[in-house]
């Protein structure tokens, strides 16, 4: 039934390791082009087995530099790696400068690595959808581990929990105040804490502080996030960092937590997609709804308030008609 002959040509090319086919399929998924759905459908059953490791943390803490070194480590372990690095899009022009690739120093001939930059393109659900699809495409193309660098905003990107099987939260020394502002969400998403720039003063203290905080909030399922100190210049702690991620992946398998997490992630994904589809359809319908114009006139004239107008427009949809 699902033999290779039945697959769309582009899906087959991806399975055969055609790098340009993979690159194009990722673009189609990002742009949500019609061909993307067919490829995703054809390949889905073959995915869901490899670790997807999220690397998140505030701007400039060294996420890309760490990924560069993690890739080297994974290649030493003879594992192939797909990387997805997300940077923000300008809310005004939609444009973006994607600069994470600057830190990527892999030899141009190593076919065991595939690096893809991605712009966040507005809504959070959109990045998540494109990232998930890109990760699945990379897995189908044969990559053993997927690393995802989240957009380096002022905050930790909580959405990574809905994509990654393991999440590394990267922080730097002198992060006392930062941890205070980040703490909401921080401990729920961190499977591993990384104190990078350990070459700078204050790293020991930061690590101790974090360990204490982690001790206070042990998570359900029995995993307590280890705190690893790293530096990328000169490199140190990279092996330990990967070992900590690997230990978490083994924990997922041993305890059955992997299935629990995956079920939750897939549920979020489906709901996000439904919301996106319904929202789009609704916007389109409203654009041409004569009732909207009439209600709007009355809202502008202040004879009814916006909520009353919205309730009236939403009523048929909310009632399921």
């Amino acid at each position, binding site marked *: 039934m699902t033999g290779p002959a039945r697959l769309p040509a582009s899906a087959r090319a991806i399975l055969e390791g055609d*790098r*340009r086919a993979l690159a194009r399929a990722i673009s189609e998924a990002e742009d*949500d082009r*019609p061909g993307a759905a067919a490829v995703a459908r054809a390949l889905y059953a073959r995915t869901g087995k490899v670790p997807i490791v999220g690397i998140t943390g505030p701007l400039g803490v060294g996420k890309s530099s760490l990924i560069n070194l993690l890739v080297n480590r994974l290649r030493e372990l003879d594992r192939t790696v797909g990387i997805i690095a997300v940077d923000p899009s300008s809310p005004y022009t939609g*444009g973006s400068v994607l600069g994470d690739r600057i830190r990527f120093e892999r030899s*141009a001939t190593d076919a065991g690595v*595939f690096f*893809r930059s991605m712009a966040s393109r507005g809504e959070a659900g959109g990045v998540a959808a494109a990232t998930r699809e890109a990760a699945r495409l990379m897995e189908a193309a044969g990559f053993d581990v997927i690393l995802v660098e989240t957009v380096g905003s002022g905050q930790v990107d909580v959405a990574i929990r809905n994509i990654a099987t393991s999440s590394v939260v990267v922080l730097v020394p002198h992060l006392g105040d930062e941890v205070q502002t980040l703490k909401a969400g921080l401990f729920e998403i961190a499977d591993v804490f990384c104190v990078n720039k350990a070459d700078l003063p204050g790293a020991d203290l930061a690590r101790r502080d974090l360990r204490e905080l982690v001790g206070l909030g042990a998570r359900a399922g029995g995993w307590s996030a280890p705190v690893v100190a790293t530096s990328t210049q000169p490199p140190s702690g990279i092996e330990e960092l990967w070992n900590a991620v690997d230990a978490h992946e083994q924990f997922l398998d041993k305890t059955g937590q992997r299935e629990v997490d995956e079920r939750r992630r897939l549920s979020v994904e489906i709901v996000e997609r439904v919301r996106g589809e319904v929202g*789009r359809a609704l916007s389109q319908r409203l654009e041409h709804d004569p009732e909207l114009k009439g209600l709007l006139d009355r809202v502008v004239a202040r004879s009814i308030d916006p909520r009353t107008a919205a309730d009236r427009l939403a009523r048929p949809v909310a009632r399921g008609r």
Partner: protein
Amino acid sequence: MPLHEKDAPIRVLIAKPGLDGHDRGAKVVARALRDAGMEVIYAGLRQTPEEIVRAALEEDVDLIGLSILSGAHMALFPKVLQLLKREHAGDIPVFAGGIIPDEDARRLRKAGIRAIFGPGSSLEEIVSTARKLARTAQ
């Protein structure tokens, strides 16, 4: 059909082959292209032709912009074009910027570099040419 299909942003790789250590010009161009709504993959300094072509393929760009000051353009630019062809990606248009003498520019155009911008070029000119090249290639 998805609403945003028509306006999928142009993806462009900006890279700086060669050994010179200044990328101010390349960064200015990268920002101008971003401000024009493009997604600019900025690969940084001292890229080999092999690295540039690899990045272009993995990032599935519509367009490649190369910047150079060191004078090695006659060796490096044709090498990029040649590697692109070898990877069956000769359809990705390449433009260039830098200090390039007229005679060299003529030869590079003949070799397949689609547009060349000297130090006096305006950003508007670069942006509109980049857009035209990307759209005709798609």
